[in-house]
């Protein structure tokens, strides 16, 4: 018997069931098919303006910084200002996301914009988030050429643009949007939920920022995208 068969045989023997009990099969199939929502905290269930405000608070609670911009056209200046405030070179890297290509980067004449994944040499990156979650101040990032996963983790500073209309109250709404976009069961290689900059509590249980991922996380919410 293979390891697999042995494990299934023991599970079924212990549970005193067989693999072909149709009631059990139906119950499992129904749950996988309907993916019922569990308890969704009331905290995030708010109209858009209040939801954005909650998102802002929760992002700051998670020790990230956040600015709210009126339009996409304001992004280059906000990025340049952030880099300046951190005493960083005016240089930023991003992926193939069309929404990033449409940003008028040329408005900041000293800002160098490069494209592609990170090999660890970049100090700052900018990604476009699939969504934000107000409940916990979380950014939802999808892997792929549009927003390479290495840009989320290797640079010291991660800047993330999120459209206000993509900020949801809860995770469940985001999963439904993803089902709509990719299909019922499909996932990109990686979905990263990011809530604040990297940190560690492993030295005497004191939380220190800047463990292995970005030392700081800066969120740019765009109102009229």
């Amino acid at each position: 018997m293979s390891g697999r068969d042995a494990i299934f045989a023991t599970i079924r023997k212990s549970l005193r069931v067989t693999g072909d009990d149709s009631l059990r099969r139906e119950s499992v199939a129904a749950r996988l098919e309907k993916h019922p929502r569990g308890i969704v905290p009331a905290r995030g269930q708010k109209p858009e303006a209040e939801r954005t405000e909650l998102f802002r608070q929760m992002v700051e609670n998670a020790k990230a910084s956040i600015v709210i911009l009126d339009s996409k056209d304001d992004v280059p200046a906000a990025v340049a200002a952030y880099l300046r405030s951190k005493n960083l070179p005016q240089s930023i890297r991003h992926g193939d996301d069309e929404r990033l290509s449409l940003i008028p980067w040329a408005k900041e004449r000293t800002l160098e914009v490069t494209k592609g994944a990170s090999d660890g040499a970049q100090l700052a990156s900018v990604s476009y988030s699939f969504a934000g979650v107000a409940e916990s101040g979380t950014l939802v990032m999808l892997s792929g050429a549009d927003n390479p996963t290495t840009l989320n983790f290797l640079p010291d500073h991660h800047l993330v643009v999120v459209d206000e209309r993509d900020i949801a109250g809860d995770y469940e709404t985001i999963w439904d949007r993803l089902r709509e976009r990719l299909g019922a069961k499909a996932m990109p290689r990686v979905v990263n939920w990011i809530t604040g900059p990297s940190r560690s509590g492993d030295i005497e249980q004191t939380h220190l920022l800047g463990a292995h991922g970005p030392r700081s996380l800066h969120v740019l919410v765009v109102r009229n995208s």
Partner: protein
Amino acid sequence: MSQPVNSPHFNANARKALDDAFLQKALARSEKGFIERRKAAVEKLPEYDALRDSARDLKDHILAHLDLYLEAYEKNVIASGGHVHWAANADEANEIILSICKRLDAKKVAKGKSMISEETGLNAYLEENGIRPIETDLGEYIIQLRGETPSHLIAPALHVTKEQIEADFRRAHVDLPPERNLDEPTSLLAEARAMLREKFLAADVGITGANFLIAETGSSVIVTNEGNGDLSQTLAKAHIVISSIEKVVPTREDAGTFLRLLARTASGLDLSVYTTFSTGARREGDPDGPLEYHVVLLDNGRSNMLGGKFQEMLRCIRCGACMNHCPVFHAVGGHAYGWVYPGPMGAVLTPSLVGVEKGGQLPNASTFCGRCEEVCPVRIPLPKLMRNWREREFERHLQPAAARYGLGVWAAFAKRPAVYRAATSLAMKMLRLFGGKGRLRRLPLASGWTEYRDFPAPEGETFQSLWKKRGAAR
């Protein structure tokens, strides 16, 4: 292979722990933080208790249908381009991982935190076979340098002080200038970050654990605050997930129920910084990510726990709250428990996985104060399960002769109320002879107790006689 079991020596381990000044300092420092952070996070979420109830019910549903959810999970991992390997025990899991590493000609492995890999003794096994695993979680990295095992589920280096870490770094990082200043925790963190960044970039294979496996999509989920699990899996040629079979959950929504509980209960954050859902290998057009994705599913005795007296233990999501709130853990730390899992959850799980002969001491290491059950996010009745083990240990004559003899003598008296009353009131009088009033600093035949604390001197009467008098007066 698997990690050797040192649990039968709990008593000796505990004594050593109580005498360890470094450990006592580290334990005293950590106790309050965990408790306060959890409390604050829980108070901010009115739905917390309702979530616990629904998480408990959901886990019970999963365990009752475990075979079917595992089938669905396997099918969806394969459909998304990944590979599933089944390991009945630790040796099989280690061999599977070694063969993947060998096929890829891997020499260096970056490892995210995984208690399952501690269970299988994976690091030692890989090293014996010429492969260098580097632990990348900061706490795990520290204890790897020290040649130790984790002493806590989520804070593996809980038992180590800042000064000890500094000494370890100076010993291990010999290429750095010896005069560098490492007084502050931030400089220790910065040094570890720089050292490990090189390891991430050089690793051939990344191995991580999994907090959850999602049947609906075939995804594995890890949570970290550091981002080490993400760098481990993103930069290597292959990502190997090592997990145990009971980690499967039905859907993404169901994962959300547990995620809303996990970080709050463990560390007091609403969510961990990074929650990562990984599904298969690099897709066409992806500029980064691993080229292969493997999941190794370990049973190691869990399937035998289903349907029995200890099934409820399989609800555990490894948050560490039970040990954070345990007076015994606070006194002796995690290593005294002698195997992978410490604290109340370890006291129940260890005998289930390694046998009551080796793990039976642990369920006795409890004051039965019940705080572990109060804070458990999936409401595991840990004290009840520990009592189950104690009964089984007694039935199977596994307790030390002195304990059995003592219980036998007590039972002989307790079954004869008149004799019991006479004997206890005589004992009260004898105790008074030793100490008069106040506290007794020394007692014949009980030096094990009085060596560490005083024994309260009796007030002169037994509880039973006082009860009788007060009842009569009413």
